[in-house]
């Protein structure tokens, strides 16, 4: 079973304006750089994007925002992007802000076939407005629904031709849950190897969740806040 496509352009084939897509990463860590570039070049518009963050002004998701390709963002924290904040305050961009753990679990649930679940996060706040609530063990919880998307785009460290993925360090973050939640999941990897070369004990995302995989090129891996000790 060979899921390898040539590059990012081939990987996003069939994606259409108006669709929903997920993008892995936390800040700029573990983002699918190649596919973001291909999406910018594609000119697709009216997209709904599920991503924990919104990149920075000139990198990551910020590149798509700058070209007004995104209609709606579903995120937990968007603090490092001024263009995003401008579009939001001016009403050009729709934004759904979700507690980070709830977002992660909605993605996991989406991939795991669990339509809804209860969590305590956000009860009593504006996040809970209009949501069904219920008490369990003396504590109030909110009903939250699973999230899926037409496309999930994830970045892994290593992958094989069957779509098995291994993430590196904290570059895993949202990639693993999103890989499960896409109708079509695209994985771009730093190192693509033939099936059989990854240690099955170390696979994070089994290939069944991945439809297209390609070897990425020219990773910049920009650091958002480089902090060092003297």
């Amino acid at each position: 079973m060979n899921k390898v496509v040539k590059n990012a352009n081939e990987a996003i084939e069939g994606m259409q304006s108006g669709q929903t897509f997920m993008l892995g990463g936390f800040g700029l860590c573990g983002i699918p750089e190649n596919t973001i570039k291909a999406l910018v070049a594609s000119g697709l518009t009216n997209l709904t994007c599920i991503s924990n963050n919104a990149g920075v002004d000139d990198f990551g998701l910020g590149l798509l925002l700058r070209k007004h390709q995104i209609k709606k963002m579903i995120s937990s924290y968007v603090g490092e992007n001024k263009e995003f904040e401008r579009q939001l305050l001016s009403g050009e961009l729709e934004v759904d802000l979700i507690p980070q753990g709830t977002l992660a679990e909605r993605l996991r649930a989406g991939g795991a076939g669990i339509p809804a679940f209860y969590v305590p996060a956000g009860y009593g706040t504006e996040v809970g407005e209009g949501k069904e609530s219920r008490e369990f063990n003396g504590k109030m919880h909110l009903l939250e629904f699973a999230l899926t998307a037409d496309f999930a785009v994830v970045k892994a460290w290593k992958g094989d031709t069957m779509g098995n993925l291994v993430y590196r360090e904290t570059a895993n973050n949202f990639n693993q849950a999103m890989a499960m939640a896409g109708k079509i999941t695209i994985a771009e990897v730093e190192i693509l190897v033939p099936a059989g070369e990854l240690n099955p004990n170390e696979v994070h995302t089994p290939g069944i969740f991945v439809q297209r995989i390609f070897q990425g090129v020219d990773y910049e891996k920009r650091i958002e806040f480089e902090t060092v000790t003297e």
Partner: protein
Amino acid sequence: MSLDKNGIAKRIAQELKDGYYVNLGIGIPTLVANYVPENIEVVLQSENGLLGIGPFPKKGEADPDLINAGKQTVTTIAGSSFFDSSLSFAMIRGGHVDLTVLGAFEVTDTGDISSWKIPGKMVKGMGGAMDLVAAAKNIIVATTHTDRNGEPKLKTKCDLPLTGIKCVKTIVSDLAVIEVTDKGFKLLERAPGVSVEEIIAKTGAPLIVEGDIPEMKL
């Protein structure tokens, strides 16, 4: 004299116990890591997928794949582990994290907290704060006692959008250590040289004061 940021962090570090798993928020809470008592072992959790946060890397050794929840480059310690975001919040939501320390705009005497949004002005999002306050077994707020305009941050009702309700257990400010009890704010300790009267004057809610209030030992 009121405490500076490091003083607040130092006092909070005294609340750590051997074997604790701790999540430290951005700002003053991060500084708590610098004052962990030498005779105890605590493991720091970062909600982006790291258990066992190490110090900042040496110059030239920063790894773009290894960051904390504040998106700063960090390192690991012996015994660290990596995991995905859903597992990370399973640790938090499941009550496996012993203590959460975070900052706040406002805290009420029933333990409500606002910390994430100033309508029309700041729309950054709540990140993991709502998950943390809703689930942590013990929550300490690290804050200045008043805001930049001298207005109390400890009050009877939050004016800004809430992060969570009935969740804060303890507040360590530049002036005092205050416990949130069933009956409201209770003054436990005062910063060295700060009077009980000053603390009462700068708190925007009734304060329970019983007997002599000791100075913090830093």
